[in-house]
């Protein structure tokens, strides 16, 4: 017997399509899922998702404990964690997708006999591609509106009854607003550009044509702004009698990144030598107050504002809440059903719709889901409703992928069943 020598390219293709690689990748995915779930005990779901499932590489931590008891204790009594370097779920799933395409579609013999498996692999590839498209091309956020009162006079000034914008749950931005009278000119800097201003760092923001620069310092991801009393000691600068205090989640409470409010210090230096200092806070106010309160300053007779806020997305339509309905399980305050009766308004007119669990509103590529309500726990009236608004080009791809996988499995196991029914094994069973 003489072994046939393979070219390097053929060996790479064989490796990428091998069953052995599939098994290793599935084991890695299982390990990442387990370790990522454990990590959510101490950290926010959003942070863990980014670190374990959307990254290229992760140092996973496995607390060494058995039945809740630490095997090796750290100074603070928590279990000593074993640190395991692993590839992130992102490259693992990308490689798994390649593995399926090469091994399950290209290298597999295209025959009627394999048709079920081929279709199933196609469905799984579509599912993975949908995930990649969602990760890179989609965005989502929150839209909250109060019930619109029946009478015009009952509307409270400032309150949000209708909105054509939604704001990111987690991501922030620093917006520079220019007051143009009837219009506002807006320029934004994403939050990640401000991360260099954490601790003792600083970031200088500029733009062509602007007669000033903005220096950002002491950016704190989870902060509150508090007055500086005589008894309070802080190393942070005090501006207008207040300072930024870094906050920590209490021990035993799972952090929620969507509830964290960033804050920072800004210094505006104009080319004429003016200097303005202020603290900015990303505190959201909707739906009780739809307005934003930027730090305003005037340079060369032009009014500007700086606003640290959740990333704002504009919609091509507005959502108005006509009525919110919450039905509880008898004798409890636990909701059985909550739904919103809304009117969607755009340039072409208006349309009424109901939004409730598993019945989102789909419009112009956006999907509006019912996600929460308030005020909690007391309830209304007046009620407000919270929607998740999502823009996702691959929105229905997972549904299509599931149908494709179902067809593939039906074909495969259907043929197996038919084969069994025609086989001698059946005949022998009948004897």
């Amino acid at each position, binding site marked *: 017997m003489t072994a046939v020598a393979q070219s390097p390219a053929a060996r790479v293709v064989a490796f990428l399509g091998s069953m052995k690689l599939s098994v290793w990748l599935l084991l890695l995915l299982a390990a990442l899922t387990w370790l990522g779930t454990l990590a959510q005990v101490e950290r926010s779901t959003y942070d863990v998702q980014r670190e374990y499932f959307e990254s290229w590489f992760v140092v996973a931590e496995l607390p060494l404990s058995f039945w809740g008891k630490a095997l090796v204790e750290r100074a603070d009594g928590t279990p000593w964690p074993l640190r395991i370097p692993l590839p992130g779920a992102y490259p693992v799933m990308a490689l798994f997708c390649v593995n399926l395409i090469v091994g399950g579609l290209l290298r597999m013999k295209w025959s009627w006999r394999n048709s079920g498996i081929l279709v199933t692999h196609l469905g799984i590839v579509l599912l993975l591609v949908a995930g990649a498209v969602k990760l890179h091309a989609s965005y989502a956020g929150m839209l909250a509106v109060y019930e619109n009162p029946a009478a015009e006079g009952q509307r409270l000034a400032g309150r949000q009854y209708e909105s054509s914008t939604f704001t990111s749950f987690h991501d922030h931005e620093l917006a520079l607003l220019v007051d143009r009278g009837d219009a506002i000119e807006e320029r934004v800097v994403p939050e990640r550009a401000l991360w260099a201003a954490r601790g003792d760092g600083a970031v200088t923001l500029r733009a062509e044509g602007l007669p000033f620069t903005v220096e950002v310092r002491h950016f704190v991801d989870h902060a509150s702004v508090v007055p500086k009393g*005589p008894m309070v000691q802080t190393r942070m600068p005090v501006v207008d009698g207040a300072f930024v205090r870094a906050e920590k989640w209490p021990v035993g409470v799972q952090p929620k990144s969507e509830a964290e409010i960033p804050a920072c210090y800004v210094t505006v230096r104009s080319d004429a030598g003016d200097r303005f200092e202020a603290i900015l806070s990303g505190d959201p106010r909707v739906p009780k107050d739809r307005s*934003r309160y930027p730090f305003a300053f005037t340079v060369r007779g032009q009014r500007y504002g700086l606003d640290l806020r959740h990333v704002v997305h504009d919609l091509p339509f507005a959502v108005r809440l006509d009525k919110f309905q919450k039905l509880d399980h008898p004798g409890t305050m636990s909701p059985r059903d909550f739904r919103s009766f809304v009117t969607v308004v755009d340039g072409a007119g208006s349309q009424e719709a109901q939004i409730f669990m598993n019945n989102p509103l789909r419009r112009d590529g956006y999907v509006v889901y019912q996600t929460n309500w308030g005020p909690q726990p007391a309830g209304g009236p007046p009620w407000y409703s919270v929607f998740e608004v999502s823009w996702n080009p691959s929105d229905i791809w997972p549904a299509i992928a599931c149908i494709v996988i179902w067809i593939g499995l039906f074909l495969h196991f259907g043929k197996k069943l038919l084969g069994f029914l025609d086989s001698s094994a059946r005949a022998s069973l009948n004897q």
Partner: protein
Amino acid sequence: MPIRFHALATFAVLAACSPPPTADFGPPQQLRKEQRPTVWDASTKDRLLLPDMAPASGGAKVWVGDAPAGWETRPSRQFRDAVWAIPTVPDAEVYLTVGVGGGVAGNLTRWYTQQFGIAEVPAIEALQVVEMAGKPARLAEMKGTFGGKPDWAALIAFYAEGDSVTSFKFTGPAAVVDGNRDKFLALAKSLRAASASPDPKAPPIQPGQPMPSTHPDVGQAPGATAPAAAATGPIAATVPDGWRPKAGSSKWHHHEFGAGGEVYVSQLGGGLKDTLDIWRGEMGQAPMAADGMAQLPRTAFLGDGAVLLDLAGDYRSFSGKQIPGARMLVAAREDAGSITFVKLVGPAADVAAAAEPFAAFCRSARKAQ
């Protein structure tokens, strides 16, 4: 080796001197004003949602005590609700601070460790019990370097209400503090809040100190007994003739009129309909129907659109006050989750006469500057 050192040193110097990172604002986007509702002229307090800086003692309270011989009462100021001084020892400080947060443990750590550098903070049970403002209190005593001043001492009498700590503090040179210990403890014992009526033992008003709310108008002739002005809180309004300030009340614009009628301004949380239904209950009336709010007339109070409740019946408040044949007028509005209202109740005949002044009062109401 020297080459490597020089390279590293050069790199370190360059790194230290390098300018801070820069970033560019994104391209400009033109938006309609309505797309970005913006309050341009908000104060820092409103912009950053800062809590009130006023101490927890409440605006109407003035703290007094019997100054020992040789000590002087000084004007109170923010975070020092009452202040005394020993004129011969300018460095010594004696002052009362009401309702500081942080709890007992946090404040003990601040006093002992942060201010005096004493690492071991005693347990509260180990501290001497003293009397302060009619309450049992503990006495913290410390000596050491305070604010860079060696051989300094402090006596701090304190009591806690929940997380809120009220402390009476005496700091100064150790010899002075030791020599005046008894005087300090006597003053701590004599502390009292004077809020209801003029106190004959109250210290004279010092230059710069605000008048207590109970103080007669300085324009009055000596000996005049004009009623004190009512607390106004954050609402300014023109008080109609004939409304008499209600003595001892901390409610805003709390006045009496006629024979047993009263009117005041206040704020509450909760839903407006629920609150109106509670007041209907005080007049013996059932809660409104679901669409009842839409039927209510509107009136001007802190802007247009406040609801007006006008009820007749037998009044019985939750505190037990009863007025048979009463009438109640309420102007209320809900803003940002809180209800601000003017509530007037009294015998029907008196309220009929007070209805127009009530409307004028509501129209004149505005947020105090």
